[in-house]
């Protein structure tokens, strides 16, 4: 079983595909769950404390807005433990405020910079594209399993 980072990190389709083909999807839910289940001082809405931007300094420089660093405190450890990644290019619903947009760019940069196997895709918009989309993911994940055995 290989840990596969999914981008968009909240993607239902990617999360399901990765789990369905026998690997572990790594997405934002894992980082959020860890914080939600940690006792401490309440910091709604996400139980993110003022400490997070400091932790985020590991992945983004101090000049980078604290919103990006706070987000990277969630995503950074997840990216570091990932052994592969699947990225959907230009995912329409992954837009957001400037903090989200810059974090998204940084996530994709960090994944590519790590040198792990990355599969680039686009959301399907027809049956033919759907068949190719699933086949590409199936082949990519099967390849990872073989690499893991070698």
């Amino acid at each position, binding site marked *: 079983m290989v840990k596969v980072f999914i981008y968009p990190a909240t993607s239902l389709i990617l999360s399901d595909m990765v789990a369905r083909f026998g690997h572990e999807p790594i997405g934002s*839910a894992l980082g959020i769950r860890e914080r939600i289940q940690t006792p401490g001082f309440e910091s709604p809405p996400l139980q993110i404390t003022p400490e997070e931007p400091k932790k985020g300094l590991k992945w983004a420089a101090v000049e980078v807005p604290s919103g990006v660093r706070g987000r990277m405190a969630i995503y950074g450890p997840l990216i570091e433990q990932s052994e592969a990644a699947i990225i959907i290019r230009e995912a329409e619903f992954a837009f957001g405020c400037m903090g989200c947009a810059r974090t998204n760019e940084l996530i994709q940069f960090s994944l590519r910079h790590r040198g792990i196997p990355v599969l680039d895709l686009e959301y399907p918009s027809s049956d033919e594209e759907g068949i190719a989309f699933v086949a590409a993911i199936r082949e990519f994940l099967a390849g990872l399993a073989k690499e893991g055995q070698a």
Partner: protein
Amino acid sequence: MAEYTPAYVGTVTKYVFIESPHLTPKDLALRAYEISGGVMIKETCFGMQVTGKPDEVETLIARIREFDPSHIYVKDRGFPPGDERRCRANLGGARPGYLGHEFEMGRIRYIARGLEAPATGVPAVPERREPLDARKLKELMEAEEP
């Protein structure tokens, strides 16, 4: 800031989405209750959320998938069900994250076709047609060709 005591520590929560011609979310929930054991189930309009110990949830998910493998989709959720920081009842309006679900559920039918297709390599896909450029359209209109 108030002291925070988390609920459901050590559990996992998963969304189960269904878009099937054979099974409604209600049917799925009923079948899930029959095999749920100690897993907590919350029915939703799109399927359900299941919360429990990781191995119990995994077992339940594996059995649920068998009902209609290419039309049932599962993903992790960070918050437990009914969490006041995310629950629609407390916030008003659509729950944060709803737009993402709505967008992806629109693509699910293509994914289902992909899952049902035989697993034989990655087929070539015809290129997407580019939308008509506005300048080109203006030229066509101004040309006034019969």
